[in-house]
């Protein structure tokens, strides 16, 4: 039997009297990759924020560990108008040794001299790798990623996913990932949760990702093609 890492029961979130999420229930086992899909405004980011206790919610959220790392959507990470914060100083917020930082930098393919660079001076690709390194440097058991591939081209996207896949395998990580990208579901997800203010579908991608569920999730007009070899 798999060890359960997260159980969510009847989770609901309200903002100013408006129900943003209602009756969301699911669970995540150790080593599982759960992808959360949904259109803009479906409540995906809100769900992650509620799971972390960053906003008030109704219902029950039970984590089996406190060793969780979270990366918010990139558009919510300020890179401009910051003080002269170096990457090394950014990693000091995690209170880990420099050896550990250098080790993880090597693993994500970043040069050590990048530590002296300023936070806002990295390219999008470097910044993404640096964030993944930041999320992993204190050996979390669970990763929560919100739109990790925001603003990255197709090549860069593939590199990021391969990197995450490598760490997931090496460290037996549990990953909850919010994305718009359906390709990641087929390649990497054990389970998928389709959201549009409520749970539309939840389960193994092959079993639940069909035209009906995707239409209900994203609204009318969506067409769904499945490759025979997929």
């Amino acid at each position, binding site marked *: 039997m798999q060890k359960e890492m997260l159980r969510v029961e009847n989770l609901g979130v309200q903002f100013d009297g408006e129900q943003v999420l209602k009756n969301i229930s699911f669970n995540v086992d150790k080593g599982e990759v759960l992808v959360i899909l949904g259109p803009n405004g479906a409540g995906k980011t809100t769900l992650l*924020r509620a799971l*972390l206790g*960053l906003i008030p919610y109704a219902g029950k959220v039970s984590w089996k560990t406190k060793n*969780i790392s*979270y*990366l*918010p959507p990139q558009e*919510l*990470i*300020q890179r401009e*108008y*910051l*003080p*002269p*914060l*170096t990457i*090394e*100083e*950014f990693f*000091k*917020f*995690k209170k880990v040794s420099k050896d550990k930082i250098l080790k993880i930098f090597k693993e994500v393919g970043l040069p050590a001299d990048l530590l002296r660079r*300023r*936070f*806002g*001076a990295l390219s999008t690709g470097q910044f993404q790798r640096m964030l993944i390194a930041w999320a992993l440097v204190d050996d979390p058991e669970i990763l929560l990623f919100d739109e990790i591939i925001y603003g990255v081209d197709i090549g860069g996207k593939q590199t990021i996913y391969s990197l995450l896949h490598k760490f997931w395998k090496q460290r037996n990580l549990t990953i909850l990932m919010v994305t718009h990208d359906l390709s990641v579901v087929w390649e990497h997800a054990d389970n998928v949760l389709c959201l549009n203010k409520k749970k539309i579908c939840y389960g193994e991608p092959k079993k639940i990702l069909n035209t009906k569920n995707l239409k209900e999730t994203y609204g009318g007009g969506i067409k769904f093609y499945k490759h025979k070899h997929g």
Partner: protein
Amino acid sequence: MAEIQFILALIMGAFIGAAAGYLGSLMVTKRAALMGCSLGHLTIPGITLALIYGFDVSLGALLFLAFGIVLIWLFERRTKLPMEALTAVVFASSVAVAFLYLPEDETKIALLGNISQISLLSTVIIAILSLAVFLASKKIFSDMVLMSVSEDLAKARGVNVGKTNFIYLVCIALTVALGVRIVGGLLTAALVAIPACTSRNLSKNLFQYSYGGMIFGSLACIIGITAFKLTGFDAGLLVIITSAIFFLISLLFVRKS
């Protein structure tokens, strides 16, 4: 100005300048440097009362800052208007009321500060309070910077955002109340903002930036007060002009990311 008064003024200036410069590096990071200006104006009625009734101007300033902040908070709860708009309402009204009662010969002191009457006791108290502001700012510094990068990231790391912001606001209020003694209600924003901007131009990293702000703040006060002793011009003006000169010189060495 007597020699002992001058030495006390230098000590007081060095402490206030250092605390204001260090905290200023956080305020510039949070893009809240002009908040020092609004809060500085809020102190003017308090300074007026202190001058009329002969008690310490920093105490008067602090009382009115607390009163003003509570008033803004109450208005915000009642109206849901933006905090900055309500700050403008409160500080403009308080300045107008203060000038109804402020004796004409005391106006300059309220606006530009006065360091000619400093006791040993007030210097010791100011040094202790400045040190407290520095230590509290140092304690919240990295949390505040992480909050500037991403508030969610900070919260997820266990940072208590509400408590950190409260400590930050108390530090600002204290710094403004102490700063009015040297630069008056008119120029407190400059006391926190200019040293931090100078330091930002010259720094390679966060450490240099925060401590640079502290050094430039302290140095500007020491040089400004010494210039006051030599020239007799208002110390507040000379402190800010010194700070502005540092800033202009730093433009020649700006480090870009």
